């Protein structure tokens, strides 16, 4: 019977590993971003497992504060990557249109 803390930590490590593998394998922006977020969720889960102090004990607040900050960072970075992706897409469709114009 393994302890709750260890179970959650191992789940965190597992998520991290899955995310890492997918990040390295995918080259398209969207799958890669999702993979990065899975990876991040794994890290946050490890932090939360570290903070756990049993059912009776009070959880350590510091890792919680860290995870909150981490989530804010992850959300803003994801938003920025999506914005850049959209910008790139509109640039590419512009060039395609202008090339099509030339052909005609």
């Amino acid at each position: 019977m393994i302890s709750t803390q260890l179970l959650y930590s191992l789940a965190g490590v597992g998520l991290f590993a899955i995310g890492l593998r997918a990040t390295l394998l995918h080259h398209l922006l969207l799958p890669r971003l999702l993979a990065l977020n899975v990876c991040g969720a794994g890290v946050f889960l490890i932090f939360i497992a570290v903070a756990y102090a049993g059912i009776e004990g009070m959880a350590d607040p510091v890792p919680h504060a860290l995870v909150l900050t981490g989530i804010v960072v992850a959300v803003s970075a994801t938003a920025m990557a999506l914005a850049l992706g959209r910008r790139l897409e509109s640039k590419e469709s512009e060039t395609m249109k202008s090339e099509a114009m030339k052909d005609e």
Partner: protein
Amino acid sequence: MSNAIIWVIMVPFLGSLVSIIWSRYASLIAIISNLAALIASTVILTQVYQSGPFIHELGGWQAGLGISLRADALSSILLVMSMTVISAATFYASTYFTDAAKRARFWPLWLMLTVALNALLLSGDLFNLYVTLELLGLSAVALTALSDNRAALQAAIRYLSIGLLGSLVFLAGVALVYAGYGTLDLAALAKVVQANPLSQVAFGLMTAGLLIKSALFPLHFWLPSAHASAPAPVSAALSALVVKVAVYILLRLWIDVFDLVLTPASAMLLGTLGAIAVIWGSWQALQAQRLKLMAAYSTVAQIGYLFIFLPLIVVLPEGTLQDAAFTALLLMALTHGFAKSAFFLSAGVIQQYCGHDRIAELGGTARALPLTIFVIALSGVALIGLPPSGSFLGKWYLISSSFHAGQWWWIPVIVVGSILATAYVFRILGHAFGPGESIGRVLNWGREEIPALMLALIATLILGFGSAELWDLVAQHGDTTGN
């Protein structure tokens, strides 16, 4: 006086917010706030020089609960370097952007980059390092994307996703450190860290994450495209500072905190990667068709030199020899910072003048832009490591430390790297002095050429002749986190 450590972060931060509101006066706001931060950074350096490292606890909250800022020899020297480069690039950028919309987007991000750099260098705990690293990464990516063409956007997306991966891996290491020791304060960690499997895994993760950020071979693949496609003042800051602060964190962790965990074998591995980076980066720089791409590959090579010091510092006995190697490492980093930023700023002038930066078509630029080509030659002197530049001394000590440590095999790497550097610098000069039509005045664009000249002069003359002070500073208040 100790308030300088707050001002150096808060002034650019306020400047960034104000420049969003009054975007018409943004460049003036940026110049004023960066000069103020430059003054604050020199105040910090003098304070460290006179009375040693000091800690400032924000709002009086002690470490563990609050955020503590710390200045010591290493961080204050790098702080002054980063503020000098940023200030020069700020003057340069005040006339660089002609498009009003682009200019309005540039300044707030630029000031935020300054905030992130300064806060990172003064951070005293691992989590603040993570947050500032992310802040730095995000502002750097946004600034890279400012070029707003396909290549730049692709480079920015790659830079962002690889940077995110790096910082997540780093954060995983931070989580393990907290699990093991219950603190993230660097000074407190330095006292309790032991060489056990947990520390090794945590240390390995943090190192891997930072190696991505510092672009050590073979993790450098994102760097050339990002640095080459960013606007010129941004490239200067990215190559000279953003990559270097990742190396700074690595040094902090390796030498101050995890010195028991760092084995000679792992140091040797990193040194070997550094040596490959020197040769491979210089070779790619020699092959590059474009000026900015060449400079970016040269950064890969110059970062490699910094890693060669590591196996030497680990092996050398504590005392004068180790201090000398450490100071030489710092001197190499400083010289590269000043020289590469001067180089990128000059490359920007050439790009604006010629409308391109293809090396093969630079003929006549030496007559049209004499001062800019002079600056490129000066920074070339520092990149090669000719006397009296700071990197001449740095390489000299690198070679003598290799002898002292009994690791002669680094010497051929340094020699070959320097020969390749000579080749790529002279390749540019050869093309620049080629035939061309126009003849220009000595000084064409004062606001753009003079900052670059200042940076190049610091790299070649001031750091070469005035580096004795650096030796004193490191010997007195060297790599000590404990006090």
